[in-house]
């Protein structure tokens, strides 16, 4: 298990390759990458991600340990950035390794659903000089009920 919280960019290709390399006992690796998405038609200048330094690492570890136990994962990785990001930049990634694909997929979706609503990150979008906090979506909270 590796949990990384940083403001610097991460190298998605290198991280994905490193995570998938050298496994003889795991048949399935799933990755998810979140990318700063521009508004339809453009106009998003940047996104600022705030987090709660003392709590973030701990919350991500709890969520990841849960996923590893529940799906008997061989390994799991979570990387999440904070600070200022521009459209097209990668915000975060998760990766899961399991013997079979169903477990790797479910565990990655579980990580994402919990990370969205239970890890202390907040996004603010800047468009034309105006900053707006991104509101939590009801569907993100509802997504937790399936687990």
């Amino acid at each position: 298990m590796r949990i990384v919280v940083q403001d610097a960019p991460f190298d998605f290709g290198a991280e994905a390759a490193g995570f998938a390399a050298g496994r003889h006992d795991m048949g399935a690796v799933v990755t998810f990458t979140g990318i700063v998405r521009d508004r339809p038609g453009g106009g998003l200048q940047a996104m600022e991600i705030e987090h709660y330094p003392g709590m973030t690492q701990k919350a991500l570890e709890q969520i990841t340990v849960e996923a590893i136990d529940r799906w008997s994962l061989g390994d799991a990785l979570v990387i999440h950035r904070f600070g200022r990001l521009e459209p097209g930049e990668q915000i975060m990634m998760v990766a899961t390794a399991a013997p079979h694909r169903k477990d790797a997929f479910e565990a990655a979706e579980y990580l994402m659903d919990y990370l969205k609503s239970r890890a202390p990150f907040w996004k603010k979008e800047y468009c034309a000089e105006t900053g707006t906090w991104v509101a939590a979506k009801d569907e993100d909270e509802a997504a937790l009920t399936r687990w």
Partner: protein
Amino acid sequence: MDVLYFAWVRERIGLPRETVQTQATTVADLVAELRAREDRYAAAFEDLSALRVAVDQELTDFDAPLAGVREVAFFPPMTGG
């Protein structure tokens, strides 16, 4: 006790963290005390359903007791990922 604010809660109150002397026994009592202080606190804590709370860096709810607690944080629902 340290009280921390994040995202628009931080912006409304105008500071990220402060030390509070309180006899409050639950989070809800602490919120009532803060709300009574000034308008900016009243504005930040106006709708508790739009807020989340962590006590000593664990998510909890507004009924949580404060005995022995060192850090309370208030913030909107999270939007990571």
